[in-house]
């Protein structure tokens, strides 16, 4: 099974590479994603009646039907996420600009879907780096959307070059306030941020319900909605209709760079990470743990707030009830998948964004509910969080050092 083991002294380069690779995180992540996708396929096949009908005919027919079903589902998901190659080819041959835009729209729509994930994932990842579990991204997204949309429709007479940054800043501010409260409570009273952020989520939902019905409601609408934001506050879209791709994606990329620089190239970031890896050592070294916690929660909230502002300023252009469903929990998953590293978060946000967008058209074309994406996310997350499961399935070697995907501050704070 392992031929190079007896003669360990004569390892060639490839064997050494494989040895290292099988111990590395990348293989685990890759296998976690593959395993999740395989199990998702099994689920799709197991919930399709045609497969059972085929199994009644013969075992092989059933097996074939199961593979075809799962395969079709994933092909539909892929074409939904990046567009169908034939359509793109035909569109470019025809030279019709609208046809081309339609054909490449799925790809850009996936990027649109990715953008809030990047912001929210960065928010959670930043918290993890400081040992904080920010479950409140969802509420912070809501608050960011509320303040962002308010700045978008209520502030008049600004040119876009000023109005857009102002509206985005308002969004960040809204999220930051919602992040500040749990951070402050944690340092002053020891109230654990997991519980307080969950509670803050629900307070944000109720608050937005009230605002949308009352103070911020569009008087011309019967259902609770805010007015449309002014054109000067809209994040510019780069292509014509139907492509909704807007510059928010580049703002998100900028944030990836900024968070990277902040965490790994500045003294502040170093202190924050120090608090995250060993709070007592950090305190002993003179780092102010309390203010680090508050700063981290404020920045985390601000990033999540940007996710909300980005959605209302770039995509919806107004705020409707329950506009963000599930970004909060998803962002925890993708921060973990990205190992709390800004680049990792970007990659996993791309994965989740393409998955979710692809699943939407998959639901229409092959009738597999979009919720399959949540199942995939949960499976992948479980395997990432418990690498021992993957190691057992694929008989991988144990890592040299103990792995801890996040080192969180103790529950008691």
């Amino acid at each position, binding site marked *: 099974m392992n031929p190079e083991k007896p003669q360990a002294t004569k390892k060639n380069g490839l064997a050494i590479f494989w040895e290292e690779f099988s111990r590395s995180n990348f293989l685990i992540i890759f296998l976690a994603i593959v395993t999740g996708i395989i199990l998702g396929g099994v689920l799709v096949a197991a919930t399709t009646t045609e497969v059972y009908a085929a199994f009644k005919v013969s075992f092989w027919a059933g097996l074939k039907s199961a593979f075809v079903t799962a395969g079709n589902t994933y092909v539909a998901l892929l074409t939904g996420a990046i567009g169908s190659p034939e359509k793109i080819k035909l569109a470019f041959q025809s030279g019709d600009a609208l046809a081309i835009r339609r054909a490449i729209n799925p790809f850009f729509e996936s990027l649109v879907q990715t953008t809030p994930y990047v912001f929210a994932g960065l928010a959670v990842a930043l918290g993890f780096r400081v040992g904080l579990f920010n479950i409140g991204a969802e509420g912070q997204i809501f608050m960011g959307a509320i303040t962002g949309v308010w700045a978008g429709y209520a502030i008049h007479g600004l040119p876009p070059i000023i109005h857009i940054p102002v509206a985005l800043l308002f969004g960040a501010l809204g999220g930051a306030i919602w992040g500040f409260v749990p951070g402050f409570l944690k340092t002053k009273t020891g109230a654990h941020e997991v519980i307080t952020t*969950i509670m803050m989520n*629900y307070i944000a939902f*109720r608050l937005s319900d009230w605002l949308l019905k009352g103070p911020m409601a569009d008087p011309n609408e019967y259902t609770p909605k805010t007015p449309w934001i002014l054109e000067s506050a809209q994040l510019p879209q780069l292509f014509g209709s139907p492509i909704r791709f807007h510059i928010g994606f580049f703002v998100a990329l900028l944030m990836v760079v900024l968070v990277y620089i902040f965490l790994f190239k500045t003294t502040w970031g170093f202190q924050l990470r120090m608090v995250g890896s060993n709070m007592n050592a950090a305190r002993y070294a003179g780092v102010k743990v309390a203010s680090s916690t508050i700063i981290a929660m404020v920045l985390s909230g601000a990033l999540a707030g940007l996710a909300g502002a980005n959605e209302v300023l770039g995509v919806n252009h107004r705020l409707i009830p329950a506009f963000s469903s599930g970004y909060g929990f998803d962002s925890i998953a993708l921060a973990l998948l990205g190992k709390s590293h800004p680049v990792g978060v970007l990659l996993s946000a791309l994965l989740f964004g393409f998955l979710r967008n692809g699943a939407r058209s998959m639901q229409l074309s092959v009738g597999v509910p979009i*919720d*399959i994406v949540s199942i995939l996310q949960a499976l992948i997350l479980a395997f990432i*969080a418990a690498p021992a499961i993957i190691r057992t399935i694929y008989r991988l070697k144990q890592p040299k050092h103990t792995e801890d995907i996040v080192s969180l501050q103790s529950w008691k704070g």
Partner: protein
Amino acid sequence: MTTLSKPAATPVSKGIRNLERRRRIIMGVIFLAASLFTYFDFSLNLKPGAITRFIMTPGGSSTISPDWVFPASPYLNVIAAVLGLLGAFQIVRGFGKRTYGILALVAVLFIFGFLTWATAGGQTNLAGLLRVMVVRAVPLTLGALSGILCERSGVVNIGIECMMLTAAFVSTVFASLSHNLWIGMLSGVLAGGFMGVIHAILSIKYKINQIISGTVINIFATGITSYLSSKFLQKVNYQFLNEPGLFPQIQVPGLSKIPFIGPILFHHNIYVFAMIFFVLLLTFLLYKTRWGLRLRSVGEHPKAADTLGINVFRTRYMAVILGGMMAGFAGTYFSLGSSGRFDEVMTAGRGFIGLAAMIFGNWNPVGAMGAGLLFGFFDSLSVKASLLQVPLPSEFLGMVPYLATIIVLAGVVGHGQMPAADGEPYEKE
């Protein structure tokens, strides 16, 4: 906090005494604030001679009680006076161990004062309000009991929501297929227990952070139930899977004929009685049996428990699985006790309010039921907010449970007795 844990005796007790004094005074100030609020904002804010009319018979009840009609202002003044006396006593002497009971009394009086004020000049169906309160408290209290079982053994469970949701789904399907509600209930309980097994394996065996493990099962359960629901239960030709039926209302003979209280407490389906039963049972088990002592010791100091020969891992597995079953039972309430069908994400965050009720109730079954009733009351009131005489957005009433939990967690009123080893994986050495 570090100074507190040092062995030097005198400064410690002095520090603790100071802390206790500060809490006592804060609590007293809150009582006084309630008193002043009742007087200035409620009593003085009324038209002279305003009459409050409480209807004492819930809609559709056969036990009729006469309406309760009284002048609002004098009643409010009495309430304000009682609250003021309680506050003064609390500041000067303190109620000691009875503080929580007095706090509950203050809350009830204050809410009653609020209702009196908000109803003055009109009428409110008080009995209906309280009856709905009891019903709404059921999933919250049962969810909180699930949390208590897990956390008393040292495992944080933020997956109560998903255990409920899974159980609601499974019980719907099995009750529909078997045309038997009890089989549905049993299957739901087992499904909740199964989610508990997953949570236990992930967090105890693989030692994943318990919050992450809870997040995993939350996302998974939401995904799989929504997936299966939109694939089958919401489709026309699979409707036979989504017709579980409802547990009937039971009138307890004799007791349900008591005026006012009877229809509120003793005319419900089985879940209300089960809630009361489980609260009493769990209180007895936790505090009066060897089993409960062991469970709590594992949650407080697993190493000491291990040294004494208690199997920490087995105890935690058992507690988390039982907690899952309890949450599963709570989940079947949604499908078999309330709506008679399954809808996507029908638990709508109740699991998280259950978590809040657990904290608010100080990790104690009776306290959890008190918190469940309080939160249930605000839930019930927010539905009827538009019927009151004062404009009060129902959304703000809906916020109360969450705000109250944050206040309790922040230690403004008293200090929660969280199990000491809560959330920490145990490593055997």
